[in-house]
């Protein structure tokens, strides 16, 4: 038994996670150790179902190709569709390639060193400044369109809003807003986070395998020193799993919902209505407007 413990410890070292030898913590009560073991066993069981939460969503399919905005079709760019799980697949993981599948120490380690194949993941964002005659009505129309498309309001400040809309409808929304007035500023950006997402998913899978092994080791450990060392390592691994899980959730959210910053500018206060025309050459003529008259600014 002692020999098998050493073998398991060496396998941990091969994963880059050697147990630390410095053990100086006070001895725990046997009942408390039992509870802790049960807790880690439950966590290991939970990890098998939670890892499915980070499957990438299918990339957005751009509906239209009209206008000046940049559009790409990503739906056909999946590396290997047979390995990809859809977002709504929340079932228990049982595929051989599943990195989080719990194992017993006696079995060989199918370490998930192969990066999981996922669809292309793009974060879309846009900033639009639109010159309109009736900003309030335009704002209401923009918010109504957002609700209709399944988006939500992130921030509002007078005639400025920041909204999130499903990525699949991103270009549709931008196109509709552009029809509301004259676009005086348009910035559209996209960030490909496919590689970042794949790396994090791979790391998460490795950490979950490591946690399963540590839990198995903990059950076999005989001395208090061994148990303390393994628990310390478990704590570190759990911390990393939580951090990566959070990062993956955030990335998934940014991919699922594009961010659009929208500013409506009244025509009498904003930029030129017809930007392609030359501005009035006599400077003082430009200062005549109704807001200056009522505001007494001149």
């Amino acid at each position, binding site marked *: 038994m002692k020999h098998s413990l050493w073998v398991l410890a060496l396998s941990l070292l091969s994963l880059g996670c050697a147990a630390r030898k410095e053990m100086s913590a006070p001895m725990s009560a046997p009942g408390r150790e039992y509870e802790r073991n049960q807790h880690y066993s439950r966590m290991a069981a939970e990890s098998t179902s939670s890892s499915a939460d980070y499957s990438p969503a299918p990339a957005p399919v751009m509906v239209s190709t009209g206008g000046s905005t940049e559009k790409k079709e990503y739906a056909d760019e999946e590396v290997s569709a047979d390995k990809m799980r859809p977002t709504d697949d929340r079932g228990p993981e049982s595929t051989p390639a599943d990195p989080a599948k719990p194992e017993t120490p006696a079995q060989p380690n199918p370490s998930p060193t192969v990066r999981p194949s996922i669809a292309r993941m793009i974060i879309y964002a846009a900033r639009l400044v639109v010159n309109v*005659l009736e900003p309030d009505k335009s704002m209401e129309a923009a918010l109504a369109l957002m609700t209709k498309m399944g988006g939500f309001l992130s921030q509002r400040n007078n005639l400025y809003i920041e909204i999130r809309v499903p990525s699949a409808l991103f270009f549709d929304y931008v196109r509709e807003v552009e029809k509301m007035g004259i676009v005086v500023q348009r910035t559209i950006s996209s960030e490909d986070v496919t590689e970042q997402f794949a790396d994090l998913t791979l790391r998460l899978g490795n950490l979950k395998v490591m946690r399963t092994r540590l839990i198995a080791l903990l059950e076999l450990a005989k001395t208090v020193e061994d148990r303390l060392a393994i628990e310390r390592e478990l704590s570190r691994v759990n911390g990393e799993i939580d951090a990566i899980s959070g990062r993956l959730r955030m990335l998934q959210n940014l991919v699922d919902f594009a961010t659009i910053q929208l500013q409506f500018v009244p*025509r009498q206060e904003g930029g030129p209505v017809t930007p392609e025309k030359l501005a009035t050459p*006599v400077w003082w003529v430009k200062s005549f407007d109704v807001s200056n008259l009522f505001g*007494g600014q001149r």
Partner: protein
Amino acid sequence: MKHIIISLFLLGFAACGHVNFDPPEGFIELRKSHTVLRLVASDASALRVTWRENKKNGTTQFWAEIFKRELTEFKGYKLVKEEPFREKAGVIFELLAPYNNSEFHYTVAVLTNEDDVYVIELGAEKAVYDKHRKAFLDLVTTIYKDEIK
């Protein structure tokens, strides 16, 4: 001595101002400078007279066109009516302008002669516009008689 000279100069400068007119009925004089006279009514309607020195070839037609372009094409105001004032002495634009989530009447008269360009503005809510339009026309007529003719 220096202060006295400056004071005299400023007094003389103010005395020969081009926008020294009596306020029409319903308006009080709120602010006056050498080139701008601002008048307000109790319902927040506003009148403003602006004077500028004219340039060579600065005809009424030239100034009318430049104002019309600025107000309709760049400010986006809706032109309701455009009519000449005293033949070629000036032009009056009646516009609708959005302001504070509402639409206001905004009327601009441009009067010119060889030396001067006068711009007279009236801004008012729709409900009180007709009442103040007479005061506006009275002021335009006064300026025409005193300065342009």
